[in-house]
């Protein structure tokens, strides 16, 4: 084990972690936005738009991120749509994540009982108020575990971003192995970096899940 090499490599990995995290955070945020919109469209059964979002969800869930990214980064510019690799990464991740978030949220929305909807209606709330104050908060509580699992999934999916020339953990590792042959050290750092990102997220979510499940609204 070459300690000197590890010490030298740490800053490089540090920068790569930041790239990964930045894209993951942006991707997750946009995924949530897309997910909320598509989830509500499905829940409210808005006829025309529902077909569209349904199509998007199936397309996104049944294709791999690698292929989506290749098309975005190498295919689309031919139609005149030029995007930086970071923009591509965020768009690709959101395109993928949006459908997962939508499905989880729809599950949560459908878990809210019909009685709750009628209660809301009976006190004179309009549709927007009904969703905003009655249905959505309850749906979120049900959906938290699934949404959390999606976050972990999306962070893991960022591992393919080197395919569009992004300097993330994978590309840094490959580069260092190619240049210096410090394979053991590079692979070790790679795994450690991913655990550093994913373990806290995973534990945090388990904690959150437990709170939502057991402390259900005030016990």
């Amino acid at each position, binding site marked *: 084990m070459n300690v000197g090499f590890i010490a030298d490599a740490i800053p490089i990995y540090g920068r790569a972690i930041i790239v990964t995290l930045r894209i993951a955070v942006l991707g997750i945020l946009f995924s949530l936005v897309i997910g909320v919109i598509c989830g509500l469209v499905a829940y409210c059964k808005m006829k025309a738009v529902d077909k569209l979002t349904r199509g998007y969800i199936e397309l996104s869930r049944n294709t791999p991120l690698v292929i989506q990214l290749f098309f975005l980064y190498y295919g689309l510019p031919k139609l005149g749509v030029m995007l930086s690799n970071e923009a591509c990464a965020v768009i690709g991740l959101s395109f993928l994540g949006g459908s997962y978030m939508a499905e989880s949220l729809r599950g949560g929305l459908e878990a809210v009982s019909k*009685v709750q909807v009628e209660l*809301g209606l009976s*006190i*004179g709330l309009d549709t927007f108020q009904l969703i905003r104050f009655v249905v959505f908060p*309850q749906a979120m509580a049900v959906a938290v575990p699934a949404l959390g699992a999606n976050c972990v999934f999306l962070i893991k999916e960022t591992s393919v971003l080197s395919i569009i020339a992004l300097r993330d953990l994978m590309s840094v590792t490959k580069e260092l192995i190619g240049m210096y042959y410090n394979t053991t050290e590079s692979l070790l750092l790679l795994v450690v970096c991913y655990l550093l990102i994913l373990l806290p997220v995973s534990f945090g979510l388990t904690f959150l899940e437990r709170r939502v499940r057991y402390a259900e*609204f005030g016990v």
Partner: protein
Amino acid sequence: MTAQKRDVILDIKGLRKSYGDKIVLNGVDICVERGEAVVIIGPSGCGKTTLLRCVNGLETHQGGTITIDGREAGSKNFDWILVRQKVGMVFQSYDLFPHMTVLENILLGPLRAQKRTREEASGQAIRLLERVGLADRVNDFPRQLSGGQRQRIAIVRALCMNPDIMLFDEVTASLDPEMVREVLDVILGVARQGMTMMIVTHEMGFARVAADKVIFMEGGVIAEEGPAKEFFTLPKTERARRFLNTFYFE
């Protein structure tokens, strides 16, 4: 409580409703005057719950008219969202909004639907809670309350909207027997204050005390109606007599 001039608040004429082939309401006429407590009784499946749900717009009717406060449902200047703010409803399932405290539950309608100020509305909420003996539970969550307590809160939630009329749909049917009384007492108190109400119930003792008028429904039509005292002591129809007899053991 007999008004000199008829002040009709709810007028139902020839109401019809069916689910597919099954006819639930087959031409129902009911007229409710301000301050009147109308109790609707009848065997299960006679359409009494559906009737209440139609009055609150939770079911759409297929024939006849519902006129609330002079406006006919479905006409141009009629908006269910506004009407529901004036028609309070309490359901059989004693559900509150589980993610809100008692106070938030009560204030949701007044603040969001009616756009009243928090100060004014919460003052009224606390006064109403005191009346039903639950002022100390304002900050509790529904899970921490018993079924009877929840149902009393649900009544307060509807009252706090200052409704013109209250609809009670078998509100004690799902409760444990020992909690029925506390809820009925609250409803009786509200009735004594002159609130207009339509009550669907199986509690005959309560109906006898609370009702100004009793409506007996069977098979989607009104089989008999009349003042409470007459109805319970001397029902005119054989069907009503048979129905009432099922509640006594002699």
